[in-house]
């Protein structure tokens, strides 16, 4: 992704938001509504379960899918309905990682033929009540919350900003 710009960040974010809506509809039969994106400089994002996916070459950044424990469990139950009615913690966490993986994969596919294309890493799961996933100061970071009937959750998209476009250090 070269050169980066706020507009390009927005293009990636839109692909991620669209992928999130489709993925949760198809995997969990859940309709979700994206709320207004915000710069992470002004809003914090906390969660109990987070899946972190690295966005790689030519991009350099990360995508974080973060939920509270109850919402994560309810979504996992919906995805595994008819297969596993009471998924344990390991399965719930694996399920959240897989959702993030599918979201990133769909966005990657959408942008594959554009200057914003990227590769993705396998998801890393972070657990712990009310944790925050930090990012490098050099990155530009947008947050978007989603509302749904089973609870709200959030996505964080951080992308490295080229030196020429950086403002004051955060």
């Amino acid at each position, binding site marked *: 992704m070269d050169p980066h710009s706020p507009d390009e960040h927005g293009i990636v974010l839109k692909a991620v938001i669209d992928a999130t809506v489709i993925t949760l509809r198809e995997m969990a039969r859940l309709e979700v509504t994206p709320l207004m994106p915000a710069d992470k400089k002004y809003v914090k994002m906390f969660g109990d379960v987070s899946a972190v996916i690295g966005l790689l070459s030519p991009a350099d950044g990360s995508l974080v899918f973060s939920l509270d424990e109850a919402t994560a469990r309810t979504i996992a139950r919906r995805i595994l309905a*008819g297969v596993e009615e009471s998924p344990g913690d390991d399965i719930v966490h694996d399920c959240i990682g897989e959702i993030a993986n599918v979201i990133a994969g769909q966005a990657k596919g959408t942008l594959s033929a554009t200057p914003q294309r990227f590769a993705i890493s396998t998801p890393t799961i972070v657990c712990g009540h009310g944790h925050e996933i930090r990012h490098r100061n050099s990155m530009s970071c947008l947050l978007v919350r989603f509302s749904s009937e089973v609870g709200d959750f959030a996505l964080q998209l951080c992308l490295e900003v080229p030196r020429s476009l950086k403002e004051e250090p955060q």
Partner: protein
Amino acid sequence: MKVLLTDDSATIRMILKGLLKQLQITEISEAQDGQEALNILKTKTVDVVMLDIHMPTLDGLQCLEQIRKMPGGEKMPVIMITSDTDSKQIERAHELGAHAYIKKPFRIDGLREALATVIPDSTNKSGA
């Protein structure tokens, strides 16, 4: 029909097992990575291998390459599982003789079509 389902994600294995059962396919073996799949193939007879592309230890493409070198593995029906549209990897899988692929999130029609590609009438034979 006997299916060997290979994916490092327990969630994906569960989802696919559920979909396969809806297609009346109940003889399902599971492996968490390519190496475990190869070990199972040395001791069990299967009709179709399903392989995730991205896995630790031995990924789906490496595993497929090894399967093709195994006695009787040259024509083993293989369905690749992918979460994205990485055309290079899908192209490489086809070069290695993968017969079909399914993309996450899964749809039962997509799985049915992939099975029908590798084994015609597969959903009629299922459960036998």
